[in-house]
């Protein structure tokens, strides 16, 4: 084969290879993007759950509820001056 023949053949091969690479890159992008979408969906679901749990937690831990439970069920009281003794010399 002549010199030009070789050049032409290698250019054809290179062209083919780059074509295949383009196909692969496109395919890979789609795969990755699909994975990203799945992760984002998971993220969405988890954050939904998180905010629901957060709201649930603050409903259970609402100050009014805690106070009422502390007083009624645990019998806790606020200490007045008579029930407090300062230990040691503060000055």
């Amino acid at each position, binding site marked *: 084969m002549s010199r030009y023949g070789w050049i032409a053949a290698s250019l054809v091969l290179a062209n083919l290879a780059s074509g295949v690479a383009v196909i692969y890159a496109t395919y890979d992008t789609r795969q990755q*993007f699909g994975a990203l979408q799945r992760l984002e969906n998971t993220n969405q679901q988890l954050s939904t759950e998180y905010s629901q749990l957060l*709201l649930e937690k603050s409903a259970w831990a609402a*100050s009014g509820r805690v106070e009422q439970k502390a007083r009624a069920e645990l019998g806790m009281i*606020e200490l007045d*001056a008579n*029930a407090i*003794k300062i230990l040691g010399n*503060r000055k």
Partner: protein
Amino acid sequence: MIGLLLQFWRHLLVLILLMMLFGLIGARAIKLQVTDRDFLQSQGEARMERVDSISASRGMILDRNGEPLAVSAPLTTLWADPRLFGQENVPELAKALGVTQQWLSQRTSTQKSFVYLKRHMVPEDAAAILDLKMTGVFGQIEYKRFYPAGEVTAQIIGLTNVDEAGQEGIELAFNDVLEGEDGKKRVLKDLYGRTVRDVESIKAVSPGENLYLTVDQNLQYLAYRELKAAVTQYHATAGSLVMMDVTTGEILAMVNQPSFNPNNRANLVYAQARNRSVTDAIEPGSVVKALTLAAALESGKLKPTSEFNTSPGYRRYDGHTIRDTRDYGKLSMTDVLVKSSNIGASEIALTVGGEEVWKVFYDLGLGQVSGIGLPGESAGLLPNRPNWKDIETATFSYGYGLTVTPLQLVVAYAAIANNGVKVQPMMIRDGTSTVSKRVLSESTATKMQSMLEQVVLKGTGRAAQSALYRIAGKTGTSHKVGPEGYNDNRYVGTFAGFAPVSNPRLAMILIIDDPQGEKYYGGEIAAPAFGRIMEAALQLLNVAPDQALSDGAAFVASELEVAL
């Protein structure tokens, strides 16, 4: 040659015709693929590709300890494309949505391409409807704001509208920070509008930032509970309370009555959504006397022991009479504060001069916005005059002829408590440092502290006493202004002060507006609640008591058991 041509002319004709056909197809292909390529491609994309927006979540608002005060939860909004939606699905969908068939068929028989079916549904319920896979019915994620602390923080946090844009309070003031930026992605959709494939991400979502407040949820709740109790007990129409850390300027609690439930705005009255602590300027009355006295000490013309004759309990200035509740006779400056004598305060102010008093008031932050950055903040009115008439100086000295917001008063009292250094109040914990400025000399501030303690020890503020902490403060009772001037039987009861006196930590103001019962003096209605809240707040902050606790009052275990 000719003979050959004649012999095969039919074949040749067919061959040429076929070649022409191929040529035609080739030319068409070239036209489509090369010449018209861009046009065709863009038309195809216009029919198949859509850009969907991905909604960003709004940042949370949390208290100083990370307790959530406003949280966005994703909910599903159902919408329909009436052009695609088939009316035969109406009965089933109406049943699933819980609406009448009539409403639904009306809603879906327009020429629009987008109508809401139901906004903000619980995701599970919406998923059940979407699973029916009706043509033209779509779901879309939207966020809705929830306020776990409800009415306790309602006015400071504020509100968002149905599209999650801030409307009131911090939600409005910091909307830019809280709001994220929506993302965009390119998707392929089929004939029915369903997303077939996500093609690429155009812009990533940037979610909103979380905002930490200086407010302490525990103190806020405590203040809310006590203020509500006081407002109810004295049949008042409104009330406000602001609690501030005197050295940092951090607002630890800010509550208002009446309040509202921000999670259910069906019967929201906008008067309740107002953050009275910053938006409402009132004539403060006697609480301002402390500031008048500070001006007097600052001028160097007077000492706490300087005496004034207030007999016979009334005095005329420029044809107007000023009265005390009774004839106090000779009063020292401290006693003017302790007994809350209007004549005494007037005499002090006249000795110092109106201009000078005005200047100290202004330095303490009256008549200007505080810089806290909450929407709708009022600057109040602090009129300066080219020539101060005696009556103007006199009324000024005991808190009339000027208006202030509760926040301004607490800032002024905090400056006294902070040994004369005024700090700018703040509500957001974002690492910004405290802005402070010396407005009173240290000696003036210390003298004022002990004078204000006297008010609680033996004066009008006795009801604010605590067995644990030394409290200093000043009462105020001012007449409300009605359409015909000052109202004789409508009042605002106030108490402003700070504690513990040995090393002031908190400054606070409590205002009870328009009490309808028999009691209306600030010393009767505001002082007791002030004392209770201050004591409990300092205990919650683990501040050591500075009252001398008698050794005899030891902690006895058996006593505690009895109490249980």
